[in-house]
């Protein structure tokens, strides 16, 4: 897999550390009942996923990579702070 890092250009996957689904929403209050879901539960899609990737072997920025989990096709990558989470349906 080749990842198009916005800072470094196209780089091989072994330079990156992956941290799973980027669409999980961290609750804002301690009373929120969704903490369990945020920490443990995942959509785990077979198909397109937006996932956190840390460019540990490069610019050391957190990215969000869009990828297909069936084919490993990579669609693109953005800096994590610019990523817009999917709104909960």
């Amino acid at each position: 897999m080749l990842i198009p890092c916005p800072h470094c250009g196209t780089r091989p996957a072994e330079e990156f550390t992956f941290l799973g689904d980027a669409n999980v929403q961290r609750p804002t209050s301690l009373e929120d009942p969704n903490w369990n879901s945020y920490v443990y539960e995942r959509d785990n899609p077979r198909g397109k996923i937006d996932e956190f990737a840390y460019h540990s072997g490069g610019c050391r920025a957190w990215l969000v990579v869009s990828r297909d989990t069936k084919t490993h096709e990579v669609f693109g990558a953005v800096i994590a702070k610019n990523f817009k989470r999917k709104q909960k349906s």
Partner: protein
Amino acid sequence: MKYSVFSLLKNSLSGHKNWTPAWRSPEPKKEYDIIIVGGGGHGLATAYYLAKEHGLKNIAVLEKNYIGSGNVGRNTTIIRSNYMLLGNNPFYELSMKLWEGLEQDFNFNAMVSQRGVLNLCHTDAQRDAFARRGNAMRIDGVDAELLDREAVREMYPFFDYENARFPIKGGLLQRRGGTVRHDAVAWGYARGADLRGVDILQGCELTDIQTENGKVIGVQTSRGEIKCKKLALCAAGHSSEVASMAGLKLPIESHVLQAFVSEGLKPYIDGVVTFGAGHFYVSQSDKGGLVFGGDIDGYNSYAQRGNLPMVEHVIEAGVAMIPSLARVRALRSWGGVMDMSMDGSPIIDKTSVHGLYLNAGWCYGGFKATPASGWCYAHLIAKDEPHKVATAFRLDRFRRGYMLDEKGQGATPNLH
């Protein structure tokens, strides 16, 4: 037909032309009492024990592909019960005991070979941790021996004992651990279940789960609609997908794990050995090929194939442990889809949907658990209460804070 030396003699006299298929290929019925989703090792074992131990009839196993096409035919065939936690080890020891009697029980040669599983340690701290785990195993009635360096050297003189960074200091040996012919496990359970009336429906993919008032009433499949009273999910790496058909979201991510076989060699490695300084495990198949593997690739995947960086990583670790491996040629590699749970331990539980049961989250340690997983899942489905060695494998343990975290690493889906 019962397989025995007499059936073999009889069929050899007739030129092996009269063997019958080991299981039927029936048409789906309109309704079953119990439908098991997933014809892998765990699903077939569940069907087998439901029929044999609980005397239940009218059971179907749905398999979207063919028997043995999933992880049961894609693993490194290792069996062991060298866990530490009380919620885990009695379960894995039940599995080991079932392995020990399996071939007689289901009348099929699964080539169960208790050739010993040796975990190498490379630091004093690691040896202390092994002593602790070995003691925990012995409290649970499991065999464990802590070996010093010379005892390991006697077993495997060709390992790298003088490695400057990771010298081998000893190892933890479970002599009753070993390997099993993985395909034969699927075939044996499939045949045993079929003989007791279970319908094994190959090429039958689950496409939807039908519920009514919070209760399962049936399924849609690629071979039509089938009604059922109880539905038991057992879909390994595809658990999240099938559970989402009933509106459930699981504490699971699917990852790819690769494994490898070398060219055939003369007898070289007697038992199963695991490297303690990297993630690498190796044994030698009865055909002579070295069977080895390492860690998951580290990203979500349903692709049944991995990438080259992990191939390089695994082989580096192997050569660090056994320098002479550098001259061995790898023959094949493959990948399987692993249901990585958030604490590295499995789930065998009821769900919030009435009549819907879940068996998932085996990470990449599911093969060794096959008999006990089937045994305990069958118990849960038949009696609606967990088996006594599987009470810790609850789906809600994450919310309650009772994780079974064998490594003590917290909530990440990369444990096993």
